[in-house]
């Protein structure tokens, strides 16, 4: 007897462009004490199908067209609000993706944890508090009695997610739905949280539905796995079996898209090993005032060779973005020197450039940003976005020339010419990132800083963008600094890798040597945390 049986679930959404089928004919079961993984790319319907179980999709525009979801004899899709309140938060709990937004910032953590308990049982406040403190300790929060009184902002991201987990578990639910619970967390924290969820599940024998876009996470966590695409279940079965021998083409493509290898031989760096194309000498960047100084980058030195891809890896707050922004002069350095080699003799000190000289150098160094939704002006067509740098730097002689150059650029990054007059919102995330890449390439730069360029993308799209970057770097002999928190991605694309922690570079080496023989303890812990 399964704990939850979902049969023929179909959900439609009414939009301006007509009815969109978000979930169609989805059936699955969850047994007591097992972990079911649901994996899929954005828009695959993995979250919607689970949210509908708790009545959490907005209706309208949502509409459950068909299907049943039997949980302990009750059809969750037909149950009235009163019945649902008895189930939601008590027998079925949920963990959301972002621990920063899933806690109320104005309420003490302890109050939030005991709230569902007071709601669903007659327990006294003191008893609830005792239980909450015991649970906080169980999820790994030390000094729980004191932290009970604190506000969410006093906790780090990982600690907050522990609080969220404690909140979900306090009513001793039979089913836990975890929607991308570690996506917003750093790798080392992710590993801890995954371990915690696994442990708690074993100890309490609860069923877990684990939703993620990350195949590695699913592979590690789930007993059985469902692969979803565009609202349909493509494949389901034993996790091991699916990953070892996927039967469906889509699953095969998904698994093949996970970067899990060294950099392809054909794209490796073959240039001058002694090149000092970009040299950073003792860079320091600090924010805040004298009283409250935060050193984002602390005395970092680094050399980038002409034609190589240098990976820069680190967790959030390690200073990798500040460092990269200082090279493109989006932030100022307080100390040190950044030198760009012009030719055999001449070197340019980037940090001291002003006015025309700075503008001229901007042509040589370009940047690709993380979020393709925010990095394009929503009111400029692709054509104008790409034409702007060409006009600005006088790289095209007349309108005809601009047109040809823009269309060539679009072709180079794999965009169709007939899309030139479209606006960013008409494109998907991957296509937008292609536009952003084209914009960076428009001025024919020598150096490109790519700040997490694939982090916001789905895994199949990520694979496409990575190979595009590799191809473009080789064709145009570009030097690139590739920043990422994702170790697998960096291993696939970078010739050398630098690891940053707390504003310092703790280790730098050829990528393969670094991955196989890390010398620094922090690098070791990062690599060990990989799922």
């Amino acid at each position: 007897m399964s704990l939850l049986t979902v049969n023929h679930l179909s959900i439609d959404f009414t939009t301006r462009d007509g009815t969109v089928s978000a979930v169609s004919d989805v059936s699955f079961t969850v047994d007591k004490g097992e972990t079911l993984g649901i994996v899929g790319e954005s828009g695959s319907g993995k979250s919607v199908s689970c949210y509908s179980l708790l009545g959490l999709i907005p209706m309208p525009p949502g509409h459950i067209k068909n299907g049943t979801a039997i949980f302990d004899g009750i059809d969750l899709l037909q149950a009235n609000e009163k019945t649902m309140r008895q189930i939601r938060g008590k027998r079925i709990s949920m963990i959301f993706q972002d621990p920063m937004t899933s806690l109320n910032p104005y309420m003490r953590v302890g109050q939030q944890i005991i709230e569902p308990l007071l709601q669903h049982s007659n327990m006294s406040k003191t008893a609830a508090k005792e239980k909450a403190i015991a649970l906080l300790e169980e999820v790994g929060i030390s000094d729980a009695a004191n932290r009970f009184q604190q506000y969410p902002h006093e906790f780090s991201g990982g600690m907050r997610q522990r609080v969220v987990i404690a909140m979900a578990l306090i009513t001793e639910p039979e089913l836990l739905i975890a929607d991308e619970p570690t996506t917003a967390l750093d790798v080392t924290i992710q590993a801890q949280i995954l371990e915690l969820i696994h442990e708690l599940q074993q100890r309490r024998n609860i069923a877990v539905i684990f939703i993620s876009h990350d195949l590695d996470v699913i592979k590690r966590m789930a007993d059985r796995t469902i692969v979803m695409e565009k609202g349909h279940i493509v494949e389901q079965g034993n996790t091991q079996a699916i990953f070892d021998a996927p039967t469906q083409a889509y699953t095969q493509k998904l698994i093949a898209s996970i970067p899990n290898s060294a950099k392809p031989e054909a794209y490796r760096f073959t240039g001058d090993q002694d090149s000092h194309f970009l040299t950073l000498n003792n860079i320091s960047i600090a924010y805040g005032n004298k009283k409250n100084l935060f050193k984002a980058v602390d005395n970092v030195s680094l050399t980038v060779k002409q034609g190589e891809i240098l990976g820069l890896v680190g967790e959030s707050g390690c200073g990798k973005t500040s460092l990269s922004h200082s090279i493109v002069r989006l932030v100022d350095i307080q100390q040190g020197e950044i030198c760009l080699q012009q030719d055999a003799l001449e070197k340019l000190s980037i940090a001291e450039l002003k006015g025309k000289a700075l503008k001229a150098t901007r042509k040589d160094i370009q940047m690709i940003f993380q979020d393709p939704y925010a990095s394009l002006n929503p009111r400029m067509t692709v054509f104008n976005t790409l034409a702007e740098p060409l006009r600005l730097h006088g790289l095209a002689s007349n309108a005809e020339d601009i047109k040809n150059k823009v269309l060539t650029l679009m072709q180079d990054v794999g965009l169709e010419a007939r899309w030139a007059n479209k606006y960013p919102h008409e494109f998907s995330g991957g296509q937008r990132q292609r536009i952003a890449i084209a914009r960076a390439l428009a001025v024919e730069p020598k150096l490109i800083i790519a700040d997490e360029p694939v982090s916001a993308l789905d895994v199949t799209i990520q694979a496409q963008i990575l190979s595009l970057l590799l191809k473009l770097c080789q064709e145009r002999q570009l030097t690139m600094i590739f920043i990422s928190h994702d170790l697998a991605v960096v291993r696939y694309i970078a010739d050398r890798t630098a690891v940053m922690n707390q504003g310092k570079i703790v280790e730098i080496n050829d990528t393969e040597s670094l991955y196989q023989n890390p010398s620094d303890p922090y690098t070791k812990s990062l690599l060990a945390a990989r799922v």
Partner: protein
Amino acid sequence: MIDSLKEYQNLNFEQGRSLWQDAWYRLNKNKLAMLGLYVIIFFVVVSILTPWLAPYGYETQNLALGASAPSAQHWLGTDIHGRDLMTRLMYGGRISLMVGFAATAVSLVIGILWGTIAGYIGGLTDTIMMRIVDILYALPFMIFIILLMVVFGRSLLLLFLAIGLIEWLTMARIVRTQVLTLRKQEFVSAAVVTGLSHWQIIRRHIIPNVLGPVIVYITLTIPSVMLLEAFLSFLGLGIQPPQSSWGVLISGGVETMEEYPWLLVFPGLALSLTLFALNFLGDGLRDALDPRATRD
């Protein structure tokens, strides 16, 4: 509409087109907004041509006639002094529209510049600039206008300026808030990295993105300015008889509303029609300037 726009975009894909061309195309598709535009154009043209079109002089009295209801000679009737209402409405429209547009333009220019600079530079500059706005907000504006009028004497130009100088405050606040969020967006960083100057970034990347709320606010400002002018005239600080504006005509019409309703109805109609037209046009423009708006 969406499909035809896509076709249109595909048709000319080899030429870059600006937001403005696209906006014009989209506006053309919005019938209500175009109707609003035509109404405004009609009023403006009539106002400009009034001296040649008006059937009577605006101060020509026919005391024997007195207040008479609409007739073949006087289409909209006459006022208590026997002056032709249509003529006075046309002359009044000249003043009202002029005050409305000119004062709003003054507030627009100052407000956008002030708000953009404060929001874009941020920090101490922002604090100082916005405190100045707060102080001006707190100033009783009537005293300010009376002072201006007393010192410089009464003139139409001064009236535009005085009203404009008050209305820009809210505009500056709206713009500043928008700019503050835009400035942190990655596309602005991307523009910096491309090498655009601050002025170019403000012009090409910031201002087009703040236009939406600004345009809506403009369509609210123009009518409120027209009413403000009526109020000032009522106090004896604005337009003086025998000159007139819609606001003056309406406040005059209110006094005799029970005996001679047409003296209130026609000026009221003219003002309301303008306001409706402005609102439709404003909504249309906001949608037209936002490529993401898919509504017709």
